[in-house]
Each structure stands twice: as structure tokens, then as C-alpha cells.
């Protein structure tokens, strides 16, 4: 189960209580939210797009949008869930717009799968274990590349961002059953890819 540090849900009312309903403190509170979640949002978008610049741009857009709508954030979910939902929608919009603007040449910085697999903390592993882990990671990346956008989102939220199924359901706007179904299919593809190497 979820172990380690758990983020306390940050609600608008909590913010207002602590802020004494002044705009200045709300701004400070928003800054704290940015500091707390920026890395996580960026990491999710990076894993989802494998494009560093695009992930950075979408992260900025996400927090810009969040800042504009911070006043209307009712705190029904945690700030992280709210932010992640914005990020997912922005990514979806990005791909939709890109399909519509097929005449536009955009230099993509999509990182190669092998290059992406290189990032592994060495820890206390031997060189052989490190090689094996890199190979495994490469296969997972290949499987992730073949997933549909929705499967990929659900898979990354679960196995990279360690989100609970109920949180993923809130973030994606899907039911828990649908989230499970997507995860099951995604895991099936990962398993098939891992078995394919043997």
C-alpha cells in the first residue's frame, strides 16, 4: 500500500482559512502548490510525451491555467488531483491541435527509447544487474509506446506516480472499473513485451 510521505489534500477553504482571505496569501499558497507539485506534473508529462521541451511547456501551461482558475478551485479534490486533471486535458488538447495543424512543422525533441532507458540510479547494483534493469526498462518503454493515450495515462499515473485507483479515476474522469480495465490491458502489453525478450 501507499507508504512514505502522503500529500495532505489542499483545499481552497483551507487556503482561505490560513490566508485570511487575502489575495496576497492566496498567491503565496499557490506558489507553495507550484513548488510542491511542479516536479510531479513535469515528470508525468515527460513520461507521457517523451519530449522534454513539450513537457516543460505543458507544465507551464498547466500552472498558468491553474493560477487563472485558483479562485474557482473548490477543494472537492486534492490540489494534486486538480492539477493532474488540468495537465491531462492540456496534453489531450495538444495532440488534438497538432493533428489539426498537420501543415505546421514543429521540431520535436522526442527522446529516443534507448536514451530514455539510460536513466537508472546505480544504487548498490552490480554492472550485470544494472544491464538487466536497463533492458527491462527498455521493454517497458516499448510497451508504453504501443499503449493508447488513455491506457498510457492510467498506466503512468499508477506505476510512476503511485496514485490510487480512485485518484486516477478522479484525475481522468473515468470510473474505477474503466481505470482497472485500462490498467489490465496495459499490463497485458507490458507482460507480453517482457516475455517477448526471452
Amino acid at each position, binding site marked *: *500500500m*501507499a*507508504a*512514505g*510521505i*502522503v*500529500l495532505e489534500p489542499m483545499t481552497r477553504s483551507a487556503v482561505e482559512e490560513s490566508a485570511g482571505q487575502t489575495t496576497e496569501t492566496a498567491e503565496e499558497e499557490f506558489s507553495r502548490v507550484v513548488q*510542491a507539485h*511542479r*516536479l*510531479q506534473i*513535469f*515528470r508525468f508529462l*515527460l*513520461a507521457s510525451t517523451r519530449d*522534454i*521541451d*513539450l*513537457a*516543460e*511547456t505543458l507544465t507551464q501551461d498547466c500552472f498558468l491555467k491553474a493560477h487563472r482558475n485558483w479562485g474557482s478551485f473548490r477543494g472537492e479534490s486534492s490540489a494534486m488531483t486538480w492539477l493532474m486533471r488540468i495537465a491531462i486535458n492540456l496534453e489531450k488538447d495538444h495532440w488534438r491541435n497538432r493533428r489539426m495543424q498537420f*501543415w*505546421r*512543422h*514543429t*521540431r520535436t*525533441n522526442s527522446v529516443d527509447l534507448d536514451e*530514455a*532507458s539510460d*536513466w*537508472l*540510479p546505480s544504487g548498490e547494483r552490480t554492472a550485470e544487474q544494472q544491464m538487466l*534493469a536497463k533492458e*527491462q*526498462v527498455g*521493454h*517497458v*518503454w516499448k510497451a508504453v509506446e504501443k499503449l493508447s493515450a488513455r491506457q498510457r495515462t492510467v498506466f*503512468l499515473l499508477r*506505476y*510512476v*506516480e*503511485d*496514485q490510487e*485507483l480512485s485518484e486516477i479515476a478522479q484525475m481522468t474522469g473515468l470510473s474505477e472499473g474503466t481505470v*482497472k480495465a485500462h*490498467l*489490465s490491458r496495459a*499490463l*497485458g502489453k*507490458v*507482460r507480453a513485451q*517482457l516475455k517477448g525478450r526471452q
Partner: protein
Amino acid sequence: MKMSRDFDNDDRELGVDAQVGEALKNFRSNVQAWGEAEYGCPRPARTVRAMSWRVATGWALSCVVAAGSVSGAVYQRHHQRELQKIAAEQAARQQKLEAARHASTDDEDLLAKVDSDVSREVPSAMEPLAQLMSDSETE
């Protein structure tokens, strides 16, 4: 922020076994390490360049030429078909006229033959007598 967790019952239900679990853990470490390394790194601005006007003009001209070729070919084909249709109609009409004319000349020939065969002044058996009569008349 949540740190990495072990796989729970939901994951086991979804079929995360030891092998897949290990691969997923490595994958998580990989993405986290990569994300942290790239996070906040100064990078040059992303370049988004629109198509130059030359390329756009090239595309537009190519499209016009392609559309012209296709419509020209379609028109040519349609025109040829029309001509073929007219020629076929004319040939059919000509053939009809020829056949009608042929039929009328055949009738005339036949009538002439019948006339020559049937319309004799005297029967053939009386021919010598008729000749004698004509001789005496001349005398």
C-alpha cells in the same frame, strides 16, 4: 509527496507478478531519475517554425497542377466517350440506311426477273407459229 510503494492487492488482481513487478519498479526509478535530472534544466527555446512562403507557394502550385491534370484527364476521357458515342450512333444510322437501300434494290431486281420470265408475248410452244405469222405480215 508520495514515495514509491509496494504493489498491493489491486496490482496482484491486475496480474502484477514478480517479473512484471520488478520491471515496473525499475521503470518507475528510471522515470523518476530522468524527471529529476531534466527538471529545471536551462534549455534553449523551442523553435516552432511555420512553413516559409516559398514552400507554401510550391505546395499551392503543385496542388493546382495536380488538380488541373486530374480534371483535364477526366474531361478528355469524357469528351472521348462522347465522340465514340456519336460515331457509334452515326455508324448504326448508316448501316440502317444501307440495309434499307439494299432491300429496295433487291426487290426491283426480283420484279424485273419475274417480268422477264413471265411476261412473254406468246407461250414458248407457239413461238415458231408466231414467227411465221410475223414473216407473213412483213411480206
